[in-house]
């Protein structure tokens, strides 16, 4: 019983991180209709940014997150403005291909500059945890979970309440009408992609505190983010959170009861089944 509860707790904590990873992907997908295959590479760069700030400048990894987010925002803004805006009206698989090309380039540069070695972000408090009636809750993961919840809520509020957020939603619903109301699509698209990249940056920094990083972590993380976005639907950030938690718990349970090597069978199998049964996502609208 305690074991099951413990697995559930780790699953939820892992799921919080998953949700944050998927949030940026879902935002870009929902608004720009671009399935960003370089999303995982952006997460990887966020992790390296945090790692450098921690080992090079001795900045606490959690304090480094805003810096990582800001630099990834700038990178994302430039990628959208400089490259993706040029092809966004082309056939669908062109945007898939071009983001894959960007992924290859980013991964190569990361391997060139940061080497292929495994890195970890290991602050002094990394191993400490809180005992809660027989359950252990690692501080780092709990803090990561809290940051994720705050960011997701903030993201939702931003989309609902601010002028720019409304511009983003308008552009995703009807670009022509949005233009007539004074939305500048070039700027809004670049902002949206930048925001998606910034979220990936934060997720990467947090990922680095709980797991090892190397230049090749991007691909699998992109795939996981897809699964979550598909489960949660693209309609609102809360769906993505639910999707992340669900996937985290399912993976932890599978690892315990079936075997760790079946984790990916569970998560990607779920993706296929959900897509076939409910193409709009488990929680979102049906197509």
């Amino acid at each position, binding site marked *: 019983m305690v074991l099951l509860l413990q697995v559930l707790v780790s699953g939820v904590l892992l799921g919080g991180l998953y949700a944050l990873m998927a949030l940026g992907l879902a935002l870009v*997908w929902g608004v720009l*209709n671009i*399935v960003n295959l370089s999303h995982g590479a952006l997460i990887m760069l966020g992790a390296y940014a945090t790692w450098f700030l921690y080992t090079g400048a001795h900045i606490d990894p959690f304090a480094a997150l805003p810096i990582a987010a800001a630099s990834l925002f700038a990178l994302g803004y430039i990628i959208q403005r400089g*490259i993706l*805006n*040029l*092809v*966004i*009206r*082309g*056939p*669908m*698989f*062109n945007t*898939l*291909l*071009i983001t*894959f*090309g*960007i*992924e*290859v*380039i980013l*991964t*190569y*540069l990361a391997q*060139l500059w940061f080497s292929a070695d495994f890195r970890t972000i290991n602050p002094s408090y990394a191993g400490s945890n809180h005992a809660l009636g027989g359950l252990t809750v690692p501080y780092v993961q709990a803090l990561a979970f809290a940051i994720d919840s705050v960011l997701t809520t903030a993201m939702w509020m931003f989309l609902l309440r601010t002028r720019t957020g409304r511009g983003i939603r308008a552009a995703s619903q*009807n*670009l022509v009408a949005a233009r007539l109301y004074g939305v500048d*699509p*070039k700027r809004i*698209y670049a902002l949206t992609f930048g925001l998606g990249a910034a979220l990936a940056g934060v997720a990467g920094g947090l990922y680095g505190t709980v797991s090892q990083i190397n230049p090749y972590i991007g*691909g699998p993380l992109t*795939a996981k983010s*897809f*699964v979550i976005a*598909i489960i949660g639907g693209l309609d609102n950030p809360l769906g993505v959170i639910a999707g992340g938690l669900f996937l985290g718990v399912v993976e932890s349970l599978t690892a315990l009861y079936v075997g760790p*090597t*079946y*984790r*990916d*069978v569970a998560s*990607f*199998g779920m*993706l*296929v089944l959900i*897509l*076939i049964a409910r*193409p709009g996502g488990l929680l979102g609208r049906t*197509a």
Partner: protein
Amino acid sequence: MKRAGAAQRLPEPPEGEPGARGAATRAARRTALALAVAALAALPWIGNTVLVQFGISVLLLATLAQGWNIIGGYTGYPSFGNSVFYGLGAYGVAIAMVQYELPFWVGMLLGLGLGVAFAGLLGLAVLRLKGHHFAICTLGLALVMTAIVSNLEIAGGNIGLVLPLLRSEVLFYELALGLAVLATLTVLWLSRSRFGLGLIAIRENEEGAAVMGVNTTFYKVIAFMLSAAFTALAGGIYAYHITYIDPVGVFDVVLNVKMIIMAVFGGPGSVLGPVVGALILSATAEVLAARLTGAASLFFGIVIVVAVVFMPRGIAHLVRHIGPAGWRYFIDNVRTHRL
């Protein structure tokens, strides 16, 4: 938001010079192609081992790109699951030869059967999805299959299987050439037949095609199975040639992306485009890998980005339409697709 893509990918009007001159050019073109294939078949007796090795890899990639062309280029369903067929073909050969000590051709049949059956069964479910959803669902299938095969004892689990060694580059080369020619002839048939036109109709407007009497489900599943057949056979040849396979290597999603890039770079929905795309991209990658070790993948990424921006409809379209416009062809492409 409606994408402008659909209208621009209408099939090219037949370039028909009327009358006898048209027939003469067609005959000349056919002779030229036959000569080219004959020259390629003679390559092992002219070139050196390095060239033959390179030829095998290019011909297999050309077959894969052509296989993807059937489902992605003609039917308009961007499959990320073709690497599954490749893996099934490779494992068909490996399991037959290693676990049951059967001859190579039985393994090829096993792999072919597995791939085609898988495509038929899953196609029924998966081909109901469209666009991104289809792409991601097939990607999910590829990842599931990697994970499942890593857990199968008969497939050697995580470690993979080691096949018996056969040192006959010429045999592998000729097999790969035969398969690539067969795939290209099939696509040529698609471009002229009623079945192929049905697929193009599905790509351009699926509801419209259904209204016009195309049995869309049947057409799509058959196209998926055809695509799977060539991909599985290529996987089988690869497995026997390379003599060692493991799940991550043959169910590789990156290989699937390569098929797409080669087909799209060459011209999706054209007959020779995917073959030319495979040749040009492999040759450049090979030369670069020799000249600047390590930077090949960077170059690969840059080629993809530049090609998608400046020639989004591939080499086949470029060759036909660059004409008098010259470099303005590239600028016009950017103009039509940018925000």
